């Protein structure tokens, strides 16, 4: 087993741990906003590590002579860019929609967004 395989295994392990923590946080947190925090940020971070593992695998196979597999790395990079652009944007849209549909954060003392929206309504 070469050191490249060890690097791939470590990246796969880190990605898996973060994706699993996202599922656990989705089950354990008390309200929509904290669940969004767990479910979106952890899966983005975990997917980055899983994609980097696949990219290293493609480059490694390319250097060993299997030249068709360099396209695996390039396409994975495009998929990674798509994840990193779309995931936080979708989370922002869900959070705003949840706040506007009247769901209050659990155990929150200060809600700045609500005060801001009331000011805008009064103007």
């Amino acid at each position, binding site marked *: 087993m070469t050191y490249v395989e060890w690097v791939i295994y470590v990246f796969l392990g880190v*990605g898996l741990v973060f994706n699993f923590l996202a599922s656990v946080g989705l089950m354990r947190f008390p309200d929509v906003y904290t*669940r969004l925090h767990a479910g979106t940020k952890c899966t983005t971070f975990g997917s980055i590590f899983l994609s980097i593992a*696949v990219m290293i695998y493609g480059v490694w196979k390319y250097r060993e002579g299997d030249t068709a597999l360099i396209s695996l790395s390039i396409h994975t990079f495009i998929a990674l860019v798509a994840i990193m652009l779309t995931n936080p*944007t979708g989370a922002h*849209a869900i959070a705003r929609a949840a706040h506007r*549909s009247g769901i209050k954060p659990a155990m929150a003392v200060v809600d700045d967004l609500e005060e801001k929206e009331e000011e805008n309504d009064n103007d």
Partner: protein
Amino acid sequence: MIMDFTDPFILTFLLLLVCMLVAMIRVLLGPTTPDRVVGLDTINTLVIAAMIIYGAAFDEVIYIDVAIVYALLSFITTLFIAKYLEGGRL
């Protein structure tokens, strides 16, 4: 198709399926509608990651192309559901 369970990519793929099952419990339980949408969004990202890993496991590039298209389409779906929850016109 015979799966080699000692292959690290296949093992990762199966564990990602377990994560999806845990997220699906939140979709079923979720007390409010945004809770279910959050669960769905998490499952979408996990499916994209699982497709990338599956493509690497069988050395097939076409699965990763499917993952790119799935990412963009699931993003549009999330935006439309959020717009609908806000009560705005589509």
